[in-house]
């Protein structure tokens, strides 16, 4: 059974690169251009993991994670964030509080992204939601 994941980024070419990598690895990939669109796709398609950019129009990455955590159905959904901005203590603390699984800097390696995703999904098999 293939894993279903959601990719969110307002930069089309980055979205396509990641989509290509995951599809070749046998994933079922959903794509969204901003947080609002992503939230709709999460509710409709119940992905097992979300990979999202930080800076996006309408609803940004942290806003999306907050919404995911506030909804009981999606509260334990693993989220991986990508950022082109450097180190930001306040933001990283916020991400930690929102139980973001990992933060990856841009430019990122699709290979590395796939590896992290695989390890996160295999970890989910034994419910990781318990702290």
């Amino acid at each position, binding site marked *: 059974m293939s894993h279903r994941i959601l990719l969110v980024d307002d930069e*089309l070419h*980055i979205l396509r690169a990641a989509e290509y*990598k995951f599809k070749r690895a046998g994933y079922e990939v959903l794509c969204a251009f901003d947080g609002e669109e992503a939230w709709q796709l999460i509710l409709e398609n119940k992905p097992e993991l979300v990979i999202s950019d930080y800076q996006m129009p*309408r609803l940004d990455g942290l806003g999306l994670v907050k919404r995911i955590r506030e909804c009981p159905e999606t509260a334990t959904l693993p989220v991986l964030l990508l950022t*082109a901005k450097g180190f930001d203590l306040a933001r990283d603390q916020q991400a930690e509080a929102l139980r973001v699984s990992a933060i990856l800097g*841009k*430019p990122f390696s*699709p290979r590395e992204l796939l590896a992290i995703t695989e390890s996160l999904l295999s970890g989910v098999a034994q419910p990781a939601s318990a702290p």
Partner: protein
Amino acid sequence: MSDSGRTSSWLSIAALALAMSTLVLCAVDEVLFVVDSTGKWIALGVTLLAAGAAVATGWWINASRQATVQRYVDLLCRIGDHRDLANISNDNSLPFPADDSWHRVFVQVRSCILAYNDRLQEADEIKAVAEVRAHRLADEVERLAEILASLPDPVFSVDSYGEVALTNGAARKMFGIEGPRGDGKNATRGPRDERLQEMLLEARRRKAPWQRAAELDLLDVEGRSHSCSVLIRALGVGQDPNDEVGHGAVAILHDNSQLKTIRQRHAEFVSAVSHEMKTPLAGIKAYVELLADGDTEDQETREQFLGVINGQTERLQRLIDNLLNLARIEAGVVVVHKQQQSLNEVLEEAVRVVQPSALEKQIALQSDLSELFLGVQVDRDMILQAAINLLSNAIKYTHPGGRVTLRSRLTEDEVQFEVTDTGVGLSSEDCGKVFEKFYRVKRHKDMAPGTGLGLPLAKHIVEDVHGGKLVVESALGEGSTFRVHLPAANSASPASSIENRPMESKSRSPRSIEA
């Protein structure tokens, strides 16, 4: 005159004696009945005459005496004005009888006055010196007050009771203090900031050169916060080292708010630039890795990936060009190559460059260019960059499904092109600010990444380099129009004079640098 006075007194005394003897004789006649009547009348006449003479003489003596007294009084009055003294002493016509008591008085008074006059002269000299010093001091105080007033930094002092004593214009403006000096009625304790007041209180208990510095956020009279460097100094060095009482304190403030804003904007700018650079870099890295890992099976995909890499490389290059050109234009270090160009051709090129991003965002990009040949004397690369910046700005701030239109036209003496969008629009306040470097409209910041450089650069290129004009017309929610006015190149002589002036000033320095 004194002789006659003395003679007259003798005369009157003689007349009095004669009259007295006549009266005695008459009395004797009466008693003895010896004298006949004629003799009686003669004696009576003589007696009366003598008495009259005596009275007249007495009156005359008295009058002459009074005249003398009056002369001395006049003289003393004149001496009262000491400046006349020398003249009076030399006036030989005045009567100075050696044995007259008036003269003695006069001599004494005169010597007193002479001594007094000497002291008065000394005092006059001292007064003159003091006046010069006082004048100099007044000048000095005035100059110091002017220097204090001209300081852009707020300065104020408090007295030993903590009330504001001396202020400069900057301090009065910041804290709304009235008048350069506090007075009893209008006593004010200056800024209400607790820490500042604590520092002033401590300084008042100390003696110079005690001082403390601090960084404080102070509220001005209108409630705005200013982040200030504050220096507080105790005032006055007590003569007595055991003197524990302070003399007040002075506070010197330096408002760092502007610097802080600039630093903040700069930090935001660096962050935005790195974000802008990392985004195309992320694409390049990702696709290079996909190609290197052999993830691509068919030639078509490989070519597609290479196309993306190429596009992202160009995007990165444009960003770096924007950065560099803006810095160079601002520093006046830029080489301008102006040539006769077809504006429409440059605009078509710009449309080709931004077309992919419009397609990606599902925005209709339309060209409505003039059918005439629009000749302009411009630096092609620069005008192309300005047009690209205006177009990509319009695409960024227009929602998917919107429209961006590029138009060009020829008017009487200029060539125009404009970019109109159906995007989010700008408030009138933001219309004035979008050409400021690093400025990004807050409410639309999250719509698209950006550096706040594209529009300022376009304005520099159009106005400073080409002597044209870039204006914006917009309203919130109703889209925007950015219009460029350029001098027409084929309208004979005036154009060359317009385009040469700004170009020369900008191009002189780079030539010498690059030579």
